[in-house]
């Protein structure tokens, strides 16, 4: 019971897609500068990754590794087409701002690498649950990063001006993304190890509660 619950939530907290596995960091660094970008990328990433991984799970396991990777990438690039079309209708300005990072979501590490090493070794229902939480892991980091960078870097929240005293415009630049993500990643690791230390110390209690 404990092991199954831990692995399902992994992607969100214990083994966060971005902060722990350092996957899909380019869009977070380059486009996680405001909430409107973040929402568009969250939508695209979630839709492309979910459907691509689900469809890719039907690819025969016995094929050579290279063939499977190419097929996953082809599936993702086909799934990208309707997602892109819908994004064009809902987020027309964002697509131009985000640039190459939109199509790059179609070949993200979750689809190309993680699916083969992790998802396709699980049974279908746990795989879907785990996939959802890995996607949510990226979504959460993207949203938090965009919120803080927009607030401190532009003095706005989702385009609405906030009475921010001091604006650090560098936070909206690529280097700001690198530094912010590095600090966020370190903070995440510190909190995670503190929580795990507490769980280990109170190990008997957590077993009783079935956590």
């Amino acid at each position, binding site marked *: 019971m404990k092991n199954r619950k831990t692995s399902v939530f992994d992607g969100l907290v214990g083994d966060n897609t971005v902060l722990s596995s350092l996957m899909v960091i380019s869009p977070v660094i380059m486009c996680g500068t405001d909430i409107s970008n973040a929402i568009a990328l969250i939508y695209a990433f979630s839709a492309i990754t979910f459907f691509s991984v689900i469809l890719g799970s039907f690819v025969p396991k016995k094929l050579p590794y290279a063939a499977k990777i190419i097929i996953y990438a082809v599936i993702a690039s086909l799934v990208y087409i309707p997602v892109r079309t819908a994004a064009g209708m809902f987020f027309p300005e964002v697509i131009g701002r985000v640039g190459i990072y939109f199509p790059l979501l179609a070949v993200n590490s979750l689809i190309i690498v993680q699916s083969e090493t992790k998802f396709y070794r699980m049974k279908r229902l746990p795989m879907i649950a785990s996939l959802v939480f890995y996607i949510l892991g990226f979504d959460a980091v993207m949203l938090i990063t965009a919120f803080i960078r927009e607030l401190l870097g532009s003095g706005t929240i989702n385009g609405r001006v906030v009475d921010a*005293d*001091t604006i*650090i*415009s*560098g*936070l909206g*630049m690529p*280097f700001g993304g690198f*530094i912010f993500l*590095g*600090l966020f990643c*370190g903070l995440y690791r*510190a909190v995670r190890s503190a929580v795990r230390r507490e769980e280990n110390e109170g190990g008997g209690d957590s077993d009783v509660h079935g956590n």
Partner: protein
Amino acid sequence: MQTKIKSERFIWIDIMITLLTLELMEYFYYGIRSVVLGCVCVGASLAAELISLRLMKRKFTADDLTCVSDALIIALMLPAAFDYKIAAIACVFAVVAAKNVFGGRLNMIFSPAAAAYVFIYTSWKSLLLMYPEPHTHTGIFEKAGSLVSSASHSFNINGKLSISDFELLMGNFCGPPGAVSVLLLSVAAIVLLFRRSISAGAFIGTVSATALLAYIVPAGVTKAGSVKYSIVMNMVLFAAIYIIADRRVAPKRGYFAFFYGFFLAAFAYIYTLTSAKENSIVLISLVFTPAALGFKNLEKHIENIRAEEAASELLQAQENADDTVTEEAAADEE
């Protein structure tokens, strides 16, 4: 170890004395506002250092007071009437993101002052490069009245300046307050070099590269003027003492440090000549950090090889001694 700890503290004391002297000069030209700015920087750095050391579960020792010298260096690079909040943010950035995240003073990678300056440069460039005129005293809570471009900016654009040598020596011209007092900086350089508180190789390399290139490819109207102004303007002398020749960052061996300073300064001079960017030596010192680390890795590699050779020689000597003892023992038996 005890000697090493002592010398680190004495280095810090030497540097602090020179920085306080520059701070005094800044007070003379710009009044109490500049002192308060320095205090804000020191306060922010100390607070950041205390909190981050606490989080790292390390004790705050006297050696950790290097954050104070870094803060003063930052304050001396900023316009005297600079915004306190931004200065404080930059100092916190220097301590946390450029130093303590990498392990603090035990594992220095970047010069914290250079990192803070570049951080302000990229986020608040227009505020950073406008200065009050000398002898303009701004109130502690007032905003600066009229701000002007620095003399470095004029030199970079026009190639000449109408500043007398006396004014140049006294620092009676627009620019970063710590970087314009040429006489004080020269004295500070001599003192710190003789006290071995800064890297002689890096300092000499920086100054000689700037002087050489300024002579060969003059930035000014005359070669002599070009050499004079190239060293004095664009924070070259200041950066050569407090950033490039910082013992924590520069390579340890003299010739490595010389080449590091030389190529850095050469790059900065050519870049300034072609782009007319102000104070580019500080920006380039950050870009050249991997070069400094590369030299340090090479030094470590050489030390390891020498240690191995010394160990094998010692082993050889021991074996020879054992052989001699065995031979003597055999001879005695006979």
